[in-house]
């Protein structure tokens, strides 16, 4: 009896294995012709069914307004182009980056997705994974972008992605706290130091900083370097693979002086940006240097108390006596940009979608999601909270926007920059060592 049962079971197992083998073979067989038909029809006819796969990084929970806007644009596109279906996959920032890398290793990127500029983009371009989009820039999108934004996505004269965001970094501050201590928004670095000292003497944390996410500390260092050494110092240093300019070392010294003055929230090297942000939102810290993506929190976001929103203003990073940087130099840059995969079976349709997306996004992102698009916005034609208008105008008047150095640098150097920022602010290295480490890693060229 048992023997019989066992034989039956064995036979069954054999059957199952072979069945599984068959069915997977069947799948392969049926899926590849479908792909082929897709690539064949890509450019020509809308009537045939085309599916564009898209990956983005705005989950409904944490970035609901972006998420909604993406859905809305997709819907409009699908309506305007019957037969086209856009399938989206959504992942949170860090996971998104990882998945992109894994997918690219197996050469199965989505047709359309988001990428970061410069250093992040480079390996993908070298690996021939992204399609150049210059034809779009010369065609439909000609003259639509704010000057100098698409360059961050250009390698060897070709542009491989189109930015949808452009942010600069103002210093947000709590007007109520400032008033309480008879302070005004500082215009010069001396005034700024005075603000820091006064706040500390009165037991208020001057600056919220979450340097566990080291890029937030990098903002401060970049501004110090800019105000001391002028707008081109960082760009040129990175381009020339050197970091020995005395101004860069001087800026590092100033950063450590700020640490000595107790300018930053306690334990900042162990706090994430989110934790630091909550210090500022809970009015436990008076200042917060952060990208303009935070502006909705101080203007339109429904879940933030109106009384708090009214207290928040911004100032430009103060200038230094004898420094070469002007008040209208900003740290900032385009955020993510849309790419089209080079080996996408529906490349032409995907490009068409990207063009549509960028235009619609430009029209709607400020008013509906509070996002500064990289395309030009006519501030006179739209109704927005004053902080938005002010910052959009600042953007138009900017003398220079220095792209985040961790984006400018290549990946390995960028990692090291993050470590060194933590070390500098944690006083684990001297300013000279800080510069030397940068020099080494920039020279290595990775």
């Amino acid at each position, binding site marked *: 009896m048992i023997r019989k049962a066992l034989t039956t079971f064995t036979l069954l197992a054999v059957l199952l294995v072979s069945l599984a083998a068959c069915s997977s073979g069947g799948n392969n067989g049926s899926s590849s012709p479908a792909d082929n038909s897709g690539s064949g029809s890509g450019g020509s006819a809308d009537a045939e069914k085309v599916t564009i796969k898209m990956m983005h990084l705005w989950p409904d929970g944490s970035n609901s307004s972006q998420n909604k806007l993406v859905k809305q644009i997709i819907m409009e596109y699908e309506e305007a182009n019957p037969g086209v279906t856009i399938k989206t996959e959504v992942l949170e920032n860090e996971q998104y980056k990882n998945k992109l890398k894994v997918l690219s290793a197996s050469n199965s990127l989505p047709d359309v997705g988001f990428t970061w500029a410069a250093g992040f983009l480079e*390996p993908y371009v070298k690996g021939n994974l992204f399609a150049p989009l210059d034809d779009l820039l010369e065609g439909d999108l000609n003259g639509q972008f704010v000057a100098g934004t698409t360059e961050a996505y250009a390698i060897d004269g070709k542009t491989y992605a189109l930015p949808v965001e452009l942010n600069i970094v103002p210093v947000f501050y709590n007007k109520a706290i400032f008033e309480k201590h008879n302070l005004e928004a500082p215009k010069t670095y001396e005034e700024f130091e005075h603000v820091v000292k006064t706040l500390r003497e009165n037991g208020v944390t001057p600056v919220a900083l979450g340097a566990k996410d080291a890029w937030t500390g990098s903002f401060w260092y970049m501004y110090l370097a800019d105000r001391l050494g002028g707008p081109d110092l960082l760009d040129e240093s990175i381009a020339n693979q050197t970091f020995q300019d005395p101004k860069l070392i001087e800026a590092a010294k100033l950063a450590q002086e700020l640490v000595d003055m107790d300018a930053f929230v306690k334990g900042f090297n162990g706090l994430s940006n989110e934790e630091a942000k909550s210090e500022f939102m809970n009015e436990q810290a008076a200042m917060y240097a952060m990208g303009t993506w935070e502006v909705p929190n101080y203007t339109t976001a429904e879940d933030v108390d109106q009384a708090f929103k009214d207290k928040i203003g911004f100032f430009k990073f103060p200038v230094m006596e004898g420094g070469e940087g002007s008040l209208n130099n900003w740290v900032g840059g385009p955020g993510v940009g849309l790419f089209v995969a080079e080996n996408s079976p529906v490349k032409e349709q995907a490009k068409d979608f990207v063009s549509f997306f960028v235009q619609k996004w430009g029209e709607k992102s400020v008013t509906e999601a509070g996002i500064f698009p990289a395309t030009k916005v006519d501030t006179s034609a739209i109704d927005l909270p004053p902080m938005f208008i002010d910052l959009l105008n600042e953007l138009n008047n900017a003398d220079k926007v220095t792209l985040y150095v961790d984006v400018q640098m290549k990946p390995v150097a960028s990692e090291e920059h993050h470590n060194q920022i*933590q070390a500098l602010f944690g006083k684990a*290295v001297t300013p000279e060592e800080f510069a030397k480490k940068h020099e080494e890693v920039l020279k290595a060229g990775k």
Partner: protein
Amino acid sequence: MDKVMSNKWVIALYVLPSLLIIMGIIYIPIVLTGYYGLMEWDGVSAMTFIGLENYTTLFNDSAFWSSVSHSFLFAVLSTVSLGVYLLVALVLSGNIKGANLLRKIYLIPMLLSSVAIAQLWLKIYHPTNGILNSALESLGIQDPPAWLAEPSLVLYALFVPILWQFAGFYILIYYAALKNIPTTLIEAARIDGATPWQIAFKIKLPLIAEVFKVTIVLAVVGSLKYFDLIYVMTDGGPNGASEVMASYMYHKAFRGFDFGYGSAIGFFLLIICLVATWIIRRMTASKDNIQYS
């Protein structure tokens, strides 16, 4: 029955699926990792063969060696804490009141995911609002440290949640092993006038020595490749002060786009784990297995 089971083909048939899976997801990737370790590869574009260059860089990379020392510190601390777990298990198995409830309490942290534990402890360690520092301040301690931001403290601060997380697991293993000891032995000893200490050290511990050895291997290897809690709580920071081998590998491969170097680290980590296991087995190998029955 015997006839079917002794048929070589049937044996092969039953072994094959799991063999294929193990080959596919463990052994082949290990070989591939070793292979990638010989390449200069950013994970996206084409690879170039550079021989052992990644490994020579690795041996001169002080950041890597400090991550190795952090991993080994964790391994040592975990091994030492096994003694504590064993003591708790001894007490629990001694038929004290509420042992059942206590055992469950110890086990609960193990049921939580590492990320949840990390989030919980992030709140506890928060430099100004965390309960730890609030408690210290209310005890009159001025300016308690920012636990996760101090390079000299961060490793120990991280070890506490790890200790907490795995306590239940090891206590459970020891508890089960202790409960497995035949009561006749213990009763016999008691009749012969042995004290509780003597019973514990002369009878119980020798009988679960094999289990103890296994847990040492588990604790050491587990510590050497530990990653998740550190990734969430400090991400190896500040400035690499809490970087361990696995997080260093992750940073090099996924943040620095250096998959060749990352693979070399991964392969080296594997070798370190194998060597550590082998050394522990050698050190704890006993000539004769103790059995009292």
